[in-house]
């Protein structure tokens, strides 16, 4: 059966291809080629200087017994599990508050969004390092409130807290997505609910949340992908320590690749990270299936 292409009259079926050429060329050059060569390198032992030596799936077998890989995978999953829900809750709450129709809201929106534009800018990282030293701003403020200062860097859980707080502070991009979706909810829904005697909280759970589920899911996926690739913040702020408590997969791959020059292993690890992300995303798909319309 011959396929019909639904194009305007006089438009050749290849016109569209022509327009997406930049993407296609880019895909071949900057995605397919590096990914394929990384997969091939992943099957070798390679120090970047001598010829790569083919080892089959040796690198993958090595991972199973490599405690630093197992630790990094656990740290990454833990980090993702802590950060992503917190970030979703924060950004949703902020979006709900910022969705009110009151004067000066634009200014508040801008302020809430600003941290997220700074990302992993080195300047922000330097600032963040200063905030959490033993007599840095955060401990000064804690003491001002009559609380005991915290040893931030010396303890694994606290050190992870530093990174989580940085990424929470930058919740703006997730917030904007929620804000946008909230605006699309027609006011009539809420008015109808009010007539029916629904309280604020009830209408949140019976109107807002169900209508937001696709967006929540989208944010969930985006945040999982970002969190599982985390590299910059631990690399520059905690150095992965203490006791490897903030040593993420991203850091492990960087170290194996550039520091220990185990390039074959590093490339195999990148593929495992890729698979792991895909698995977590798939799990998120499965888990939310019942609560989500098809998209």
């Amino acid at each position, binding site marked *: 059966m011959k396929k019909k*292409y639904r194009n305007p009259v006089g438009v050749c079926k290849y016109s569209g291809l022509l327009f997406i050429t*930049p993407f296609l060329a880019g895909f071949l050059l900057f*995605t397919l080629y590096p990914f394929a060569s990384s997969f091939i390198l992943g099957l070798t032992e390679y120090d970047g200087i001598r010829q790569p030596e083919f080892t089959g799936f040796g690198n993958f077998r090595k991972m199973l017994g490599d405690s630093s890989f197992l630790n990094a995978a656990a740290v990454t999953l833990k980090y993702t599990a802590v950060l992503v829900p917190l970030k979703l809750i924060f950004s949703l709450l902020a979006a709900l508050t910022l969705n009110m129709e009151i004067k000066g809201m634009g200014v508040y929106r801008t302020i809430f969004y600003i*941290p997220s*534009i700074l990302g992993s800018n*080195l300047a922000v990282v330097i600032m963040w390092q200063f*905030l959490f030293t033993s007599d840095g701003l955060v401990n000064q403020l804690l003491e001002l409130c009559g609380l005991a200062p915290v040893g931030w860097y010396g303890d694994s859980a606290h050190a992870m807290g530093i990174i989580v707080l940085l990424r929470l502070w930058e919740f703006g991009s997730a917030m904007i997505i929620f804000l946008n979706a909230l*605006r*699309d909810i027609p006011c009539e829904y809420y008015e109808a609910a009010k007539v029916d005697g629904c309280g604020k909280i009830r209408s949140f759970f019976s109107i807002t949340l169900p209508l937001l589920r696709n967006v929540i899911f989208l944010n969930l996926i985006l945040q999982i992908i970002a969190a599982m*690739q985390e590299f910059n913040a631990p690399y520059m702020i905690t150095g992965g320590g203490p006791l490897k408590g903030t040593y993420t997969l991203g850091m492990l791959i960087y170290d194996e690749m550039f520091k220990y020059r185990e390039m074959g292993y590093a490339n195999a690890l990148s593929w495992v990270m890729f698979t792991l992300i895909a698995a977590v995303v798939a799990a998120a798909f499965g888990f939310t299936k019942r609560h989500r319309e098809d998209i």
Partner: protein
Amino acid sequence: MKKAAAYLLLTLGAAVMIYPLLWLAGASLKSNDEIFSSPWFMPESLDLSVYARAWQTVTGHTMGHYFLNTFAIIIPKTLFAVVSSVLTAYGFSRFDFPFKRLFYALFMGTMFMPAIVTIMPMYLMWSRLGVLDTYIPLTVPALFAAEGSFVFMLIRFFSGVPKEFDEAARIDGCNSVQILVHILVPCVRPVIVSISVFTFLWTMNDFLTPLIMISSVEKYPLSLILRLSADSTGNGYEQCKILAMSVIGLIPSIAVFGLAQKKFISGITAGGLSG
């Protein structure tokens, strides 16, 4: 009453969001001791001379030189990103063609790929082409719609423009390119602003790519010079100097965001990633 509570809550939240940055600006004017003794951001005395010192770097060039370098990367990169993303989005949203579903799936897939995988092979590729230590590895990928989320944003925006517009123009004798330039591009101006701003911000934030691709200090962008200075050991090490450099490093991002924020926010919200 309820409004007052909302304002209180919002102001409190805004304070938490903005205070670290205020503190950074203030601390850049403080002495080492003062930084670690007072949480209040205002310095005891206002002496701006640290900024003059921070403007001078150890390399013999001023920060101004590195600003120019950064802009020499950002300007072509932005242009490339806008043109290539618009073309690609146009192709996906307005045309039907062989393997469209496959290509669209591939396109969505690229957004989920971990970037770290590609660094080493890309380095080797650029090295074979002999263009390391130039801005080509930093700018040219933008020519190939490398940033999937930009295309995605545009596709959503294009789909909001009724196809009847195109058809009317086509009847008037416009070809596909003319339709894009005259009808569609004017409709997506806010997205183009958003793409430009994002390109600007992300380039300012990027550290790893220039670290690997650029080797002469002369050609460093701002992020690398910040790093070089963060390792700095100058006479009577001053914490405030590195903080002042950080402030200088953040000003462009905040300024560009501030200038473009109205259009920028409408660009990401109206056509944004929302379901």
